[in-house]
């Protein structure tokens, strides 16, 4: 690893001030993605600000749902009684991600901040528009490796089928974020200009012309907590993750679903997909279509077909155009217990 400066902070205010002050400064939480990227020289930081001692790891019930501190570990959230009972989709998604060791290290905020990425992004000898400039050292300000997108026309089996651009077709690999997008969570943020909140589905962004930016955070802004509103989905929740091995692999396609049923009728539903876009991919059209309808395979197939409008394969990932709708149907069947 390249050398960097290291600062410990004990308050969010001090953390925000430290990151705002100096370019090339990053918050360090669990480090499961950041340290890996620093080792690969994809990120060459000037300074890391260790936020692990910040008092932001509480998981608590609120008047409208549950508040999860940004520094709560993924394993602590997945195993929390409130989460398991009232938000099983979140627990299932978390447990489908990474390994037990990584879940013990990774935080909720860090999981959201992990880079949307692909193997070209990780290889600094390969063209990539996402890496952006070097942040430290003699090459500061220079592009970190050649620009362009080698994944387009290259090895793109893992890549996006929705919302990609000519600049980037990488996918956000988080499972947790799929659940939080589906469950209409809200992200509470603190920054140099004060506090604000954004809907979870507006936190991450599509690549467009600026694939260097994975999310809508301004410089120096820190995620404080995530609010998940109360729902009636606990009986009918499911997270389906389709991957190359049975455990500990990124999703080829994943589907998060939460449903409230009355008899055979779907009263309310939330659907989101992972492994298919630069951000968690919420399926609002399918939700709208299924509301008030009976839980039948025909309806599920129709809904899945609706979600595929605008989907585009890039060659090696063309199989996702079939896998995605099939996965939606299966997730819906399992969640509604009609499989």
């Amino acid at each position, binding site marked *: 690893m390249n050398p*960097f400066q290291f600062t410990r902070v004990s308050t969010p205010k001090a953390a925000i001030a430290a990151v705002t002050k100096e370019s090339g400064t990053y918050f360090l939480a669990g480090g499961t993605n950041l340290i890996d990227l620093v080792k690969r020289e994809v990120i060459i930081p000037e300074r890391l600000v260790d936020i*692990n001692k910040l008092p932001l790891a509480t998981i608590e019930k609120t008047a409208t749902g549950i508040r999860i501190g940004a520094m709560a570990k993924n394993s602590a959230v997945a195993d929390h009684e409130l989460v398991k009972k009232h938000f099983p989709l979140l627990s299932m998604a978390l447990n489908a991600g990474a390994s037990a060791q990584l879940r013990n290290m990774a935080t909720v905020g860090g999981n959201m901040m992990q880079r949307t990425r692909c193997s070209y992004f990780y290889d600094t000898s390969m063209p990539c528009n996402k890496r952006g400039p070097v942040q430290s050292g003699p090459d500061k300000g220079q592009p970190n490796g050649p620009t362009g997108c080698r994944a387009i026309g290259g090895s793109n089996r893992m890549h996006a089928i929705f919302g990609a651009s000519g600049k980037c077709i990488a996918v956000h690999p988080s499972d947790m974020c799929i659940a939080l997008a589906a469950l209409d969570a809200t992200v509470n943020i603190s920054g140099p200009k004060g506090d604000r909140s954004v809907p979870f589905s507006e936190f991450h962004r599509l690549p467009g012309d600026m694939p260097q930016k994975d999310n809508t955070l301004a410089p120096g802004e820190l995620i404080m907590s995530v609010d998940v509103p109360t729902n009636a989905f606990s009986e009918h929740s499911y997270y389906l993750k389709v991957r190359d091995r049975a455990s500990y692999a990124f999703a080829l396609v994943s589907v998060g679903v939460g449903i409230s049923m009355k008899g055979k009728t779907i009263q309310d539903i939330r659907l989101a997909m992972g492994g298919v876009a630069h951000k968690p991919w919420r399926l609002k059209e399918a939700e709208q279509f299924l509301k008030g309808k009976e839980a039948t395979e025909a309806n599920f197939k129709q809904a899945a077909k609706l979600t595929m409008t605008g989907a585009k394969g890039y060659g090696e990932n063309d199989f996702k155009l079939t896998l995605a709708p099939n996965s939606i149907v299966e997730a819906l069947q399992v969640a509604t217990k009609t499989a």
Partner: protein
Amino acid sequence: MARYFCALIPHIKNPAMENEHITNEPESPHASRRSFLKQSSALAAFALTPPAAVAAVENGLDEKVAVAFEQQPLRVEINGVAQQLSVEPRVTLLDLLREQLHLTGTKKGCDHGQCGACTVHVDGQRVNSCLTLALTTEGAKVTTIEGLANGDKLHPMQEAFIKHDGFQCGYCTPGQIMSAVACIREGHANTPEEVREYMSGNICRCGAYANIVEAIMDVKKKGGQL
């Protein structure tokens, strides 16, 4: 990196020549192998060291390499022993254990959090030490494979791995055992299926998985405090 390596090699005196006394010690294949590995890693460290450190290197002992960088104090308890250390920010817990404290039981496999060979416990939680910056363990209690046995008495999980032949080459074993102990403590070892899922962060290239699962289930069935 390759360019760095070639440029620096001529500056390095042959470590094997300078340390001939090592090979003059009484015949001990283990000592020789360990010394060789240490020399090799010193050589690799030279190759990866920025020019700022080269002066320090040429002026004397390789310990001075580290001093060329800014170090920060670190208080951490490792296997029950309180340590007051001085550590560079970029040093991982894995490298601190192996290179500075010479606790080489914890293995470096992929060094990127993908294989689990470096698994240790930090405040009772299993983590990948290769992705943990040492400085983030300030005030924590770290347990490595060396801290598991009680004197000469092996930990029940170590005994079970021997009994069930839970390894072949042994390189992943310290990580497997640390992970297995945590897996039971977490309450995630109720069925073989659950063990497989919760041990998926530990890769075994020899494919000893079936026996590893048996070893863990055996320890779990016997109960008792781990």
